[in-house]
């Protein structure tokens, strides 16, 4: 299970966001270059269509693979009232044959992306990860060296935090609280809820860049 919020930011303000995050998280950023391959079950396989993501971390000297299943969001009146998405999520590290395996099992390529940017992994009442990345599409199959941005000039920001059915309320509160610190630069909300860029981003970014994050926003 995980808690998730997303937002977008103009590329020109990413440096300011990095300064802010560096101050808030207290850890160094890590570079991100992940090839995300989204597979869907073929027409006859399974009584319902299933999807699975294969993530190939290209930042490592030897690419490493992760299988990720993102499940349905928590439902109900309580879920609708909270501003953070709570959904099931399971990951598994896998050896390099994983794409071949899933193709052989009857899964087909639905789409693929290349995410390039950086992440912060830190603990702030809950374990959290902030990812800032450009989302790129490949013009040729699996050609990560020839990827182009899906939305030039815009990058995606995602905050995720692992949770359990026992503690998700606390994790939601931690994520929400953290998001408030980023509010001058960007608005974070449930995936699929479009919010656009915030009008205060330019001023906030200028402030951060002028004194390297010393100013309280």
């Amino acid at each position, binding site marked *: 299970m995980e808690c998730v919020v997303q937002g977008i930011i103009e590329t020109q303000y990413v440096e300011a966001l990095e300064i802010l995050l560096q101050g808030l998280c207290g850890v160094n950023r890590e570079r991100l270059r992940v090839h995300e391959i989204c597979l869907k079950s073929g027409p006859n396989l399974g009584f319902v269509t299933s999807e699975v993501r294969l993530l190939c971390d290209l930042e490592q000297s030897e690419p490493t693979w992760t299988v990720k299943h993102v499940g349905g969001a928590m439902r109900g009146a309580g879920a609708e009232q909270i501003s953070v998405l709570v959904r099931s999520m399971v990951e598994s590290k896998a050896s390099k044959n994983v794409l*071949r395996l899933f193709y052989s099992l009857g899964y087909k390529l639905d789409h693929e992306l290349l995410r390039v940017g950086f992440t912060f992994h830190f603990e702030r009442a809950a374990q959290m990860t902030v990812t800032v990345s450009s989302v790129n599409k490949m013009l040729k199959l699996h050609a990560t060296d020839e990827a182009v941005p899906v939305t030039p000039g815009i990058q995606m920001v995602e905050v995720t935090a692992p949770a359990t059915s026992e503690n998700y309320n606390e994790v939601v509160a931690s994520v929400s609280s953290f998001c408030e610190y980023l509010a001058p630069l960007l608005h974070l909300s449930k995936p699929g809820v479009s919010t656009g860029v915030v009008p205060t981003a330019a001023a906030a970014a200028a402030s951060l860049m002028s004194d390297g994050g010393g100013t309280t926003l």
Partner: protein
Amino acid sequence: MSVVYCHIFRRLISYNPYRKKSTTMPLKRVFFWQPNAGSTVNSQILNEVSQCVESINGVKEGRWKATLTFYKPMLRDQALSAEFPREFIGISLPEQPNKYYFVLRFNKIVLESDSSIQLIMEKLQSYKSRVALNFEGFQYQLGDFQLRVGKVVPSHSENLRGIVMEVEYLPISSLEKSKQIMEEFFDIWQDAISKRSLPGRFIHIEPDFSDYGLADHYTSQHTAVQYTHVTSQLIASVQAVQTGRN
């Protein structure tokens, strides 16, 4: 044992008195019991095999268990089943409690993953567990060798379907470099077990690991492939006996 074999045997089991284990994965060979024509596997044979290990100074160390699961595709149209893998197998090994292995024997694919991959497969609902086999028994230390002798039983039954034996040589991870010593050990073993006049013998048929993209350096993926092949050989052996009866 003959005088010559006694000499070789002493050299084998005392090759390294401090039993230095390979810093990487020590290699192993998995054997399965092939009954003679007209006979079947039974628990008495399993007992005799275990006693034979102890008679050559194998020190019993504890229990072990591996599990092999056959997965079947969930299809909307069964007529299209030929489009999907004939054998999709999942394996858990005692030496890798946080890992799970998938093998597609006919596609020559082996995958190592975290155990959580089983939960992912459950959530996908595209493949489901059809039948599971447990390989379980005792393990023994014998100088630089570790032996595991085990019965093969369906997961919800005590019906003995087969007997397996793992021979692990601890100091070396190279398949090529270990060939001679493994063969010498097996000759000693054959000499010891043959004196019990059991109706069958242990067989090892080494899979072509390179077909699976596996190198000379031994890993748990090699073990997963061996268990897959041993299981298919066991099934063929059981079917041959049943055909003989009919």
